[in-house]
């Protein structure tokens, strides 16, 4: 069928017509400055012919009498002129108010912003420049409504979690990110300076991207050159330093000693300190450091008559605020964007991005991590002890996990090196008066990730989990590849001047595959002598060498993966006079992740728009420049689960021991089942309804967008705990992935922007947005009716601190409610308690089910990690040569769990304990301290749940642009200097490092094990153009 259509088109295209011809010429100039416009397009309407202006704005063209020519240039309003007999046609183009005819990339094509019917947000390079982010994600936070970015770590080069309109699934909630159409999973490889625009597709119209689009789509377009422009260079550079934006308030030595004594004596023990010490290290200051950051970016853009090119290169070097170079990240990128008109109607576009990065990794976000140790380390112990072989103080009496964090940093050698090339190649061929366009685009990524870890022999003190008595070295090399091949044909035409129709038909094939390799070695030797230095840390020097994968595993391909998608899609867009807009999408996706019966799914979506401002009663209205109503509904599938979950494969761990005790060869390798299978597994379906209004008022000075959405994710793909009798806790096994639930995210988004030019010298802009989000699990299948997860490590550790259950937000915290502390023995006697050891000052747990006992059945909702409202505020002004901008982000109503403390006598404690209950301080809700056990405090209760609302001043920047005539003398077009501060201040009551941090897991997010905080960064930069 498709073939026949193509042949038909082919024959049509070869038909030609001839008529009376004439020559015209002229100059195109800009009304703004009366300068000629180079590279303006002049096209004959309805014909496949045209030209562009030269450097002086001149053109010549052969036309026929009665033709209309259309003159277009980006950033200017187009002009259409009917050819009668005039041979010289000079045209003055006036600048577009930009906004209405802005072209927005929407997926396998682009569309005028005015005609868009979906919920799309755009951030352009100017906004990115203002924010000066080290990472792209930072530019999204607070800029567009409905997008929330959290970090699981503030360490340089660490990944962020981007959530578009909430958490809708228990699996992967990351949006699809496309850079020039190329899938990217880790945004850290992208240099923000390379970006021309970021578009966020939030509703069902993203469905044109199919199964990967259920969590929204982020389309990033990199900078490209422009035809017929001179070669221009930009240099952007900054240097700066970063410091910890926050530290946790822990006890000073004297207070610490007093509280340790009290805690010990309350438990019937002896006081530990006879003399209260006054001095001791501030352990957090010992590991935090003022860390330098430097970035230089160079790009060159230009174009000839047929080609446009852009080249960029950058280098970023950033130390971490924890451990300095021990968490260093550096990245070099090179980018090429090249577009070439092979023929007038055959266009080639190609991009290539190369990234090389090195990242040093620290232990973070877990018990035993550097910051965890810095928080919990005894504040009286010195850092160093000259009598020790390695000079470091050993962490005595602090359990197995707390060690000297300075010694830990010194013994950490963990590097990851990434070499990645991302390339795209596309051909567009237009024919039949440009009504038809065939496109074929090939995108690929190839990356090699080298990991090198050296674990030296080290002794942190007796009984420590981290002691190593035989040194180890790991060398891994992982290869990741993927490609996407998109082929599509677009037909667009306007009938009777009023009916515009665009039809898209296409297919896409995606394959991602990779291979993991590696070796490890133990006991480094140099000339037969044991050595313990990073200098000799290579597997080649190790006495014992072990393959990361056994021969059996290699034979079974356990070190490889291969996942594919095959999709066909069609989209119809129609509008009548640009007033009534209609769009429909149908996509058929096939994924290797599902069994043969459920492999394919069909996913439709549709949207309607009404440009009310085009109606007679509003057209040319001075107050209302644009008013558009949009409605969309659609179903998008998702396959974000592990491979082969429909099959029970022998991919588990089966290792036993011969008991030769000689070396690794004594291990017997067998086969066992991996994750439990579920042959019935099928697509998760997300049904999204969106209604929105776009409006621009008062000469486009005010723009507003409002959206209300209701997103229901059905047949949720869940992999969470199952009954242990199924054997899913066996090594290498896992619970099955099942379709088990419905989650609703509904909310309201509002965005308002104000731009005003009071005079040539004074311009201001301001924008504000907010998003409300109501997340509720509507249904969880299975007999048990809930899913559990999320580890909490204080006291009696639990591994089900988070739950997904109907009627509650996904991943809500499930534990005991408390009601202050017991103030007297009488009160204890009259209350249900969980332990006979309960004493005044102990936490009073609430008997929620009123059965007279405190049991596990009293656990209930005690908070959730999902913010009710997020908002962003951006302000800026230009006065003469000075520019200023500031942005802030706020998140309200999320809770976090304090899980970075250790309940050990000699571990340090939060300063809030100074207000603990004592017989003389009875008006307190902070439980007493005791080693005898305060049983209620060792349960997971709301004692550990805190409000994590915050307001963060994300960026403040002030710049000065030198007079053009001054800098032109030294050959520059533009010179700007600026100072900028990122994460200037965070207003919050949350006690932990970062109220905006999250592990990103749907169940278990918001459990804070000492997240690496975001850095406050001071920068001095310059922008240079020549």
């Amino acid at each position, binding site marked *: 069928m498709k073939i026949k259509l193509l042949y038909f088109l082919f024959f049509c295209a070869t038909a030609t017509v001839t008529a009376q011809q004439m020559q015209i010429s002229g100059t195109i100039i800009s009304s703004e400055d009366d300068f000629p416009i180079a590279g303006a397009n002049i096209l004959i309407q309805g014909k496949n012919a045209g030209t562009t202006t030269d450097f002086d704005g001149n053109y010549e063209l052969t036309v026929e009498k009665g033709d209309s020519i259309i003159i277009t240039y980006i950033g200017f309003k187009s002009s259409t002129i009917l050819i009668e007999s005039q041979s010289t046609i000079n045209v003055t183009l006036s600048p577009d108010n930009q906004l209405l005819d802005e072209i927005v990339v929407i997926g396998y094509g682009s569309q005028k912003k005015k005609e868009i019917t979906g919920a799309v947000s755009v951030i352009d390079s100017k906004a990115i420049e203002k924010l000066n982010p080290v990472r792209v994600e930072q530019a999204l936070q607070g800029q567009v409504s409905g997008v929330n970015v959290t970090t699981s770590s503030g360490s340089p080069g660490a990944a962020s979690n981007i959530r578009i309109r909430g958490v809708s699934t228990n699996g992967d909630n990351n949006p699809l990110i496309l850079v020039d159409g190329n899938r990217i999973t880790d945004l850290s490889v992208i240099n923000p300076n390379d970006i021309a625009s970021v578009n966020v597709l939030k509703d069902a119209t993203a469905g044109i991207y199919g199964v990967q689009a259920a969590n929204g789509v982020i389309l990033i377009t990199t900078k490209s050159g422009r035809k017929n422009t001179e070669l221009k260079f930009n240099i952007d550079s900054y240097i700066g330093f970063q410091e910890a934006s926050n530290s946790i308030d822990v006890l000073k030595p004297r207070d610490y000693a007093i509280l340790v004594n009290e805690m010990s004596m309350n438990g019937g023990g002896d006081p530990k300190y006879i003399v209260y010490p006054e001095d001791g290290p501030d352990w957090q200051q010992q590991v935090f450091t003022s860390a330098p950051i430097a970035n230089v970016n160079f790009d060159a853009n230009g174009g000839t008559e047929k080609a446009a090119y852009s080249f960029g290169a950058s280098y970023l070097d950033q130390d971490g605020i924890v451990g300095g170079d021990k968490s260093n990240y550096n990245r070099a990128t090179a980018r090429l964007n090249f577009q070439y008109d092979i023929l007038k109607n055959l266009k080639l576009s190609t991009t290539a991005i190369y990234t090389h990065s090195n990242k040093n990794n620290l232990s973070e976000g877990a018990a035993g991590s550097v910051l965890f140790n810095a928080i919990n380390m005894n504040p009286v112990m010195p850092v160093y002890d000259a009598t020790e072989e390695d000079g470091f103080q050993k962490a005595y009496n602090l359990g197995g996990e707390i060690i000297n964090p300075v010694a830990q940093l010194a013994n950490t050698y963990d590097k990851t090196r990434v070499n990645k090339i991302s390339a795209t190649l596309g051909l567009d061929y237009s024919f039949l008066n440009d009504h038809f366009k065939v496109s074929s685009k090939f995108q690929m990524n190839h990356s090699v990730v080298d990991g090198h870890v050296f674990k030296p022999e080290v002794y942190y003190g007796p009984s420590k989990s981290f002691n190593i008595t035989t040194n180890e070295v790991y060398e891994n090399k992982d290869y990741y590849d993927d490609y996407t091949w998109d082929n599509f044909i677009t037909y667009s035409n306007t009938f009777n001047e009023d009916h515009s129709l665009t039809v898209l038909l296409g297919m896409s094939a995606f394959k991602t595959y990779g291979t993991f390799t590696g070796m490890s070695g133990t006991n480094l030797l140099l000339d037969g002598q044991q050595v313990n230095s990073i200098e000799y840390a290579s597997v080649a020097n190790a006495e014992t060498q072990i393959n990361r994968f056994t021969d059996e595993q290699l034979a079974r391909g356990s070190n490889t993966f291969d996942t594919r998608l095959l999709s066909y899609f069609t989209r119809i867009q129609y509008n009548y006079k640009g007033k009534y807009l209609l769009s429909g999408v149908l996509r058929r996706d096939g994924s290797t992740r599902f069994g043969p019966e459920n492999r394919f799914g069909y996913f439709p979506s549709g949207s309607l728009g009404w440009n009310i401002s085009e109606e007679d009663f509003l057209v040319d209205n001075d107050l209302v420049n644009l008013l558009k109503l949009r409605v969309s509904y659609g179903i998008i599938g998702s396959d974000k689960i592990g491979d*082969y979950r429909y099959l029970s494969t*022998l991919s588990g761990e089966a290792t*036993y*021991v011969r*008991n030769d005790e000689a070396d690794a060869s004594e291990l017997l390798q067998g086969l*066992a089942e991996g994750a439990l299978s579920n042959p019935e597994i099928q697509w998760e379906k997300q049904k999204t309804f969106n209604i929105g209004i776009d409006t621009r008022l008062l000469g486009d000075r005010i723009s507003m967008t409002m959206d209300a959405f209701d997103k229901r994710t059905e047949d949720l793909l869940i992999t969470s705990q199952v*009954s242990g*009798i199924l*054997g899913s806790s*066996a090594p290498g096994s896992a619970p099955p992935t099942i379709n088990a639930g419905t989650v609703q995210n509904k909310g309201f988004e509002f965005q308002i922007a104000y731009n005003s030019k009071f005079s040539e010298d004074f311009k201001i802009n301001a924008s504000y947005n907010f998003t409300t989000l109501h997340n509720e699990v509507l249904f969880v299948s299975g007999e048990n009716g809930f899913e559990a997860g999320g580890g909490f490590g204080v006291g009696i550790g639990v591994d089900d601190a988070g739950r997904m259950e109907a009627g509650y937000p996904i991943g809500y915290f499930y534990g005991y409610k408390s009601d202050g502390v017991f103030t007297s023995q009488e009160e204890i006697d009259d209350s249900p308690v969980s332990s006979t050891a309960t004493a005044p000052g102990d936490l009073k747990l609430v008997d929620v089910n009123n059965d007279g006992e405190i049991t596990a059945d009293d656990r209930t909702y005690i908070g959730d990690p999902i913010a009710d409202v997020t908002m962003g505020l951006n302000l800026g002004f230009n006065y003469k040569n000075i520019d200023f901008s500031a942005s802030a982000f706020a998140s309200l109503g999320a809770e976090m769990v304090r899980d970075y403390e250790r309940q050990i006598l000699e571990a340090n404690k939060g300063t809030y304990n100074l207000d603990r209950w004592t017989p003389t301080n009875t008006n307190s809700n902070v439980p007493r301290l005791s080693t005898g056990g305060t049983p209620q405090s060792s349960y997971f209760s709301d004692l550990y749940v805190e409000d994590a609302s915050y307001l963060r001043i994300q960026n403040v920047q002030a710049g000065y642009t030198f007079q053009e005539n001054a800098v032109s003398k030294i050959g520059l077009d533009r010179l700007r200097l600026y100072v900028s501060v990122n994460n200037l201040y965070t207003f919050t009551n949350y006690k932990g490092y970062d109220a905006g941090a999250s592990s990103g897991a749907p169940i278990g997010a918001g459990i804070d094990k000492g997240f690496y905080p975001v850095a406050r960064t001071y920068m001095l930069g310059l922008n240079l153009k020549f």
Partner: protein
Amino acid sequence: MKNYKIYITGFIIAFVTLTACSDDFIDVPSRNPNSDDFFKTEQDYQDVLIGVYDLLQASFWNVMVGEIASDNTLAGGDPDNIDGPSIQDIDNMVHNDVNEQLRDIWRWMYAGLNRANYMLEFRDNIEFDTKNDMIGQALFLRAYFTFELAKWFGPLPLLVEDGRIQNKRMQFGEQFTISRTATIADTYALIEADLIEAVSLLNTTQDLEYKVTKGAAQSLLGKVYLYHGTFDAAKYTDAATVLDQVISDGNYTLASNFGNIFEHPGENADGSIFEVQYTDVEGAGFDCLQCSEGNVAVGFSGVREYVGPTFDSGYGFNTPTAEAASIFTVGDLRKDATIFDAEAIATSYQPSRGETKLYNRKYLPRKGDLGLGDNNLTNPNNYRAIRYADILLMAAEANIQKAAPDATKAKGYLDLVRDRAFGNTTNRIDATLANILQERRLELMGEGHRFFDLVRTGNADSTIDGFVANKNELFPIPLIELELAGAVERWGQNPGY
């Protein structure tokens, strides 16, 4: 115009080619074998069998926490806070249905049971010479895991058909319908049936030390009969018969030096009938304790912050009580091999909670191990699961308890154990039931048997502080496990919890 055609043709070819590749593109078979379509060679059976053995290593809590539950040892751990609260609860007999260790035991033993069932599900796929022996090993292991579960939790959710545990894996969904065996005795009967079959299939000797032997299966069968005897006295006779057989077959002798048994050379040596094999050649972490190839309980039992000769440090759990140390009479060579007094040789150490300053010497971390990270989790000490001395004592007990007691035979067995313990024949005692049970405590202290011996002989109530009769004989099924199986009502909780 010519170029036109070339390019158009090119596009068409591209389009057609790709469209033609069609749906086969996403038909990518797994390179890992499909478990439902496996078992084609002898090696396949051997590979899967290794996976069953793997879960034996996850029985470390059973041993350590089982010992702590008894009157032999305290929980210990950090003296300054409630370290391992759910272990402390069990020590104090105040444990409830939210308990980390109990949940681990439940999940991990069931994981082993399921792996054994996977092999047995396909036992008839092909025939080969060594198959009987391999099936015998799988049956033994299934019995071992099921017995562990029965000791802790009593009646068990099991798929049963014709008086046998079904030879099939439990499939997702079946957890919502499966029911518990009616009684503990029913569970024991199922285990016995597995072991009787295993005895008939297994080799008497094996090429590698880790493998189950016929003697091991007979020994475990005798033990299960003994436990079964609590509910059905006739089973003591069965126990005596099969244990007598192990002894009369003459395949085992007692190690001459008791002190050597728990040192490295003592592994799989004289007197060893079945051991759980551990090694230190691979690292491990807290995120997957059941994945460790080392004996996790050993690191947990090490002396806290210990600096001194012979031993490595640990977390200081499982500390013998002064009372336990006091029961050894003068001249009993077992005392110094069983109880380690840190005070005597440590340069420095931190006494554990409870401050007995005594440690379980049989399973302490020894110096000289490889110590790959996490050193505390990768100790290579094998667990001596079934020792010949245990068989002798069980045989003695069964011969006393059986319908027609044979005190002479019992005395003979008891004498062998006493003579070895004292290095002479002058410390023999009468073979009364009380003496035999006391001898079990002396001989097997620190090895995880005591609590269950006290329960099955009805002595727990009078011996263990805090023990509540008609409740603490069994441990509660973790609440979350009842909930996850939708079985709060269907299985019900054990009495008293």
